[in-house]
Every structure is written in C-alpha cells, then in structure tokens.
C-alpha cells in the first residue's frame, strides 16, 4: 500500500472526528500525497473500457469529424498553456446561462485529452443541482462530489476509471440541496487543493453550473486556475456574457468555446475539406463496462 493510500485511510478514520481535526488531517493527507503520486489503481484491469454511445460525444463516436476536430483544437490550446506553465492543471468549464453545452464540451474535451498518450484527465461533475456527466457517459454514479463534500465518502471511493485513455470521472453524486454552502466550505477548498496536488500531471476539468443563475460557480472559479466560457450561438445575449465575464473578474478566463454554430447542410463551410458532412447514425464504440477505480 502506498503512502498516499495509507494517508487516505488515515483520513477516513479521522472523518468521525471534529471538523477542525478533519481539516488538519486532510492537509496532512495532501502533504503526503504530494510526496508520492504513483500508481493509485493497482487493482484496476487495463482492459476495462467505457462504452461511449451518446452521439453528442463526437470525440469518441465520430473522432474524424470536423466537430471532433474543434475539440482537438481546444485540447491543443490546453496542452500548450500547460506546457508554457501559464496554467496549472485545474480548469473550470461554465457558461452564462443554462443549456449552452458546458457538459458536452467538458466531456468531449476530457475524452480528447485522455486520448493523448501522456495526459491523464480527471473530469469532475461540479453541477450538483443537475448532474449529467454520468448519464451522458452511461456510468453508475452512486457516490460523487456531494458525498465527498458532505463527508459521506472518500475521494478514492468516488473516482471512476473509464478505461478511455487515462480518463477518470468524479460524478456529482447525490443532488445537493445546498450547493452554495458546500462550495463555500473549507472542505471544498481542501478538496480542490488535494486533487490538484495529488495529480499534478493530470488535467482536472470541472463541469460547473452556469454563472448567472447560481452563486456557487463564482466560488468555484476562485479555486481553479482558469475558466473556459461556453457560449452557445443565439442563446445568451451580449449583456449576459458581459455580466458573466465581470463576475469572473478575479479568475483568469482562458477563452471561449463558441458552441452549436448553425451550419446548414447546403451551406456547410467545412464541407470542402471533409467531403460533405452527412447525418449518419453513429456506430457504438467497442468496449466493455466501466469499473470504479480501485479501493
């Protein structure tokens, strides 16, 4: 058993203790985690691969499409920024209003990054009000972020290895009644610090709720290294986006993903390069069931 695991085990033992004691123990855990970040899933079978069938997850379902190509571009930007040490490894993906495609962008970006040989990716569903990553990926999500923040579960109990490259998913868990309080809690900041330092060579992607309707996103924004705004065509107004940007004034905004651009079949500007995009029923990706990460 590695030192980290030992530390985590110790931390779980301390869970029943007072919050103050908990905090102290979590910091210690992080410290020990920094010292040794090697293999944390020794019991995981390398052949277990997640079956991705949702057509919206084009990076897996139709990796050669020009849409997937756009996510690859986004991935390249991320890698480039990380190499230049402009950002560390924690990025939050959000939007001004609901329904702009944050989750799809998060998953596709995570899948694209996971396919890189060197990159390991942790995708966290931080939308505690309306979690959906698990549904899109078709994975069980009994435990998740809510459970960690409410002290019902340990981090390692919630992490799910997908087998798609080095992608690990942390689902939202149970729907939270008080996400603002959870995100503002000391436990949340400790959690972010822990995962950040536990996996320094990983990309950690937070799929956050929209900024304007909910307050917890602004809190989370202060904990991450950078924010990517998803802007859906013909949804949010300029005023909405401006307000969202101003509410993120303390955080670095890496840029925007202009999402769901209308490209009619006959007027497709990409069709020259791809020989015409046609609607076709996506074939399911080969693979097996997903398994939880090791205990």
């Amino acid at each position, binding site marked *: 058993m590695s030192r980290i695991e030992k530390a985590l085990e110790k931390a779980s033992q301390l869970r029943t203790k007072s919050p103050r004691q908990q905090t102290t123990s979590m910091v210690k855990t992080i410290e020990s985690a920094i010292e040794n970040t090697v293999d944390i899933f020794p019991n995981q079978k390398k052949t277990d691969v997640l079956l991705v069938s949702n*057509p*919206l997850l*084009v990076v897996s379902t139709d990796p050669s499409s*020009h*849409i997937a190509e*756009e*996510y690859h*571009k*986004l991935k390249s*930007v991320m890698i480039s920024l990380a190499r230049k040490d402009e950002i560390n490894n924690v990025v939050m993906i959000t939007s001004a209003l609901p329904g702009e*495609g944050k989750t*799809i*962008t998060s998953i596709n970006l995570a899948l694209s990054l996971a396919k890189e040989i060197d990159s390991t990716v942790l995708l966290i569903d931080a939308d505690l009000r309306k979690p959906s990553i698990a549904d899109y990926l078709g994975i069980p999500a009994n435990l998740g972020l809510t459970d960690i923040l409410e002290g019902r579960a340990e981090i390692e109990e919630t992490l799910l290895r997908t087998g798609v490259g080095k992608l690990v998913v942390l689902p939202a868990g149970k729907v939270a009644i008080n996400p603002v309080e959870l995100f503002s809690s000391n436990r949340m900041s400790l959690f972010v610090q822990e995962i950040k330092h536990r996996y320094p060579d990983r990309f950690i992607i937070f799929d956050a709720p929209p900024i304007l309707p909910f307050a917890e996103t602004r809190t989370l924004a202060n904990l991450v290294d950078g924010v*990517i*705004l998803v*802007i859906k*065509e*013909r*949804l*949010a*107004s*300029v*005023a909405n*986006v*401006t307000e969202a*940007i101003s509410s993120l004034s303390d955080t670095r*905004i*890496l*840029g*925007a*993903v*202009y*999402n*769901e*651009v*209308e*490209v*009619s079949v006959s*007027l497709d500007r*990409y069709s020259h390069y791809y020989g015409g*995009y046609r*609607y*076709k*029923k*996506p074939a399911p990706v080969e693979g097996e069931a997903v398994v939880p990460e090791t205990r």
Partner: protein
Amino acid sequence: MENQNIDYNGIIRLVLKKRWVFVSTALSIMTISVIISYLLPKIYESKSTVFIEKNVISELVKGIAVTPSMEQTLRVLKVAMTSRPLLEKVINELDMIKGKGPNELPELLELINKNITVTVNRDNTMFIISYLDKDPRLARDFVNTLVKSYIEQNVSSKRDESYGAIKFMTEQSDAVRKKIEAIDKEINQYKVQQGGVINIDESRLFTEINADQTRLHEVQLRRRQLEGLKPVTRRESDPLNNQLITLQRRYDELRSQFNENYPELIRIRGEIEVLQKQIKTRPQNSPSLIDPVEIARIEAELNALKISEQTLARSISINQNLLKRIPSAKANLEQMEAERRNQKALYDQLLSRQGQSEVSKQIEVQDKTTTYRIAEPAIIPVKPVKPNRIRIMLLGLIAGIGGGIGLLLGIDFLDKSIKNVDSVKLLGLQILAIVPQIPDYEKEMRTQRKNRILTVLSSSYLGIILFVIAMEAAGLPYMDKVFALITSGF
C-alpha cells in the same frame, strides 16, 4: 452576383431554420390577398366616344366671323364635364340622389368627380368620357346622359355667347358715336371762339409785320431828318454860316494831310475864328435869315410823318399779338381733332366687328360651326375593371414571400442574442474553438419528417392559390360562386 450589403446566405439560413414561421406567414398573406380580391366590390366602366366635327363654314368665315375656339373648349373639357350644374342636372335626370338626403349631395358629387375620366386625343378630333360605378347599368346611363347634357349645354352656351357679343358691340359703338358727336360740337365752338386766328397764315402775317416795321423805320428816319433840317434850313441862307462850313470842310481836308503848323491850316483856322466871332456877335432873330415857307412845309410834313408813325406802330402791335396767339389756338384745335380721329377709328372698328359678330350669331344660331357626333354611345359593361384580381393575387404572392422574410428578419433583429463569433471577439474573449451543432440523428429524422409534411402541405396550399389565379385568368367564375355562397351564409 453577391451583394455586399445583403447577406443572402444569412436570409436563406434564416428561412430554412424558421421555415414554419415563414411558410405560415407567406401563405396567410397570400390567402388574405385572395380573399380580399374576391370581397372587393366589382367596379364597372362604361365609356362613350364623341367626335368633334368642324364645319366647312367655319373655315370659310375665318376672319369674317369669330367662332369660339375649340381648342380652348377642349382644354377645359374635364372641368366643364365635372362642373356642378351639369352634374346636378345628370344626377336629377337619373334620380341618383334617390334615397339620400340633400346633405349627401356634395359627397355624391365628389365621388362622381373621382369616377369620371375625360381624355381628348392629340389632334382634338374626339374625346372619350368614361365613368366607373358598381352598377353597370348606371355607369352606362350616366355616361350617355352626361354627354347629351354637355353637348346641349355647349351649343346653347355658344349661342348665348354670340348674342351677348352682338349686344355688347352695339352698346359700345353707340357710346363711341355719341362721343364723336360731342367732340365735333366742341371743335366748332372753339373755332367760333378763336375767330379768324386759326385761319390766319402765320408767314404772311410775319411778312406784314416786317414790312410795317421797315416802313415805320423809314418814317422815323424822315421825321428825324426833317427835325434836324428845321434849324439847318435857317442856316442855309446865312452867308457867314455857309462860309464857315466851307472853311471848316477845307480845314478838315488839310488837317488829314498836314500837321497843325501847316501855314494854310493856320490861316484857315484864323479865318474860322473870325467868322465864328462875327456869327456870335450879330443879332439872333434877324428876319433876314428865316425862310417862313420852307419852315411851314417842314412842319406839315413832320405832322404827317408822326401820324403815319403811330398808325404803323399800332398795326405792328396788333399783328404781333395775333402772331403770339396762333400756336396755342392751333394746338388746342389739333388736340381736339386728334381725339376725334381716334374715336372715329374706334367707331369704324366697332362697326366692322359688329358686322362680324352678326355673321357669327347667324352661324351659331344655325349651328353651322362645330358639331358633336357621338361615335360610340356607352353600353352596359360586362366585365368589371376593378378589382384586378389577378394583379392583387400576384401581388399577394410577392407580398407573402416578402412578408415572411420581413417577419423573420424582424424577429432576428429583435433577438439580441449572440449570433456570430465576431460578437464574442468584441467582448475581448479569445476564441478557443468554434463547435458546430452536433447532429442528432433521431432529432434530425423527426425534423426531416416534419419538414416533408410541411413541404407537402404548403405546396398543396400554394397549388390551390395558383389554381385560383389560373381560374381567374381563364375567366372562370367558380370562385365567385363559392364566395357568393359563403357571403350569403353570413
């Protein structure tokens, strides 16, 4: 060719995206246009062509008689045709005001005015009058009655004009004649007042004055001579005096040749002085020196000359006065005569025009100048001229498409959401990726199914509209019957 200002691709995308809105708007507008075209009241047009014939007489009497100008009459034809008295006459004749109050007459007149069209052809040989009305029979009757009334009124007005002209001419010539008579009287009186002054020859009078003045001058000269001669007469018989004159004359002659010291001059001077002393010293009234007969003769002649002088001076003065009066008297007379000449000329002209107007009157009375011939009387129109249903429906088709696009553009304009990547760039955000819509096969299938239904339905509906237009173009009255049935149901 791509227009830089209009994003045609954008419009096509918009239409394709919101095809339901576009199709329903366009078809609604088209349907409304079809309904309107059938609900609009039918307007019938009836027209009549009237030829204007100029009689040969009018050419013959050119210059002799004055005929009313046809060009001018035609120029104001529209005004004349729509003049209130004429229209009121037609309204009364056709009983158009029946069932309406007297207050509605102005409205009716205005409506009629709008519906009348008068066109005159280029060479003024004919005019066409047309009238629009919902009732084809009334349209026909209106045109025919109006044309008949106009022609009647035109003829009678021309006659009135001729009679009026003659009356006027007679009045004027009488007035001028009276004026001439008055001037004649005045001239005669003036001539009497001025006596013979006016008839005197100015140059002869002038010569006379000159002759008198010469004679007066001569008389005066003779008188002065005699007056000078009177004392001299006494001296002529005086030897001393005669000698003195001789010596004096001799002295003057020598004086011109020699100076004062010339001996002869000195001698003569001495003799003159001696003689002068002798004359001074001798008694003045020495009878021996006076010749009484000669003196008497001179006196008599002097008296006669004085009388003659006075007579001549008086004659000259009279003649000079006359001469002064002549110009003004003659000028006054000339003025009077000029006035008379003018009046006379006017009178002559009036007399000649009076003759012309008499001819004109006769021409008009006998209706010999212009005749109106109704070439085509108005008939009951069969087909309505309005509404132009095909035009309305075709306009409806265009308006439907335009309205649909307009509505979409309006909605798009009001939609303040971010519509392009440039708006994002303007916010200062770096664009990391532009992700197109991810096709959803199931959704797309559903949409395509719906689109197919929409296409079939809208095409069928459009087909019906086009069929209605085609029926209208072919003159088939089925739609009229359908609409009549529907409207009678209400």
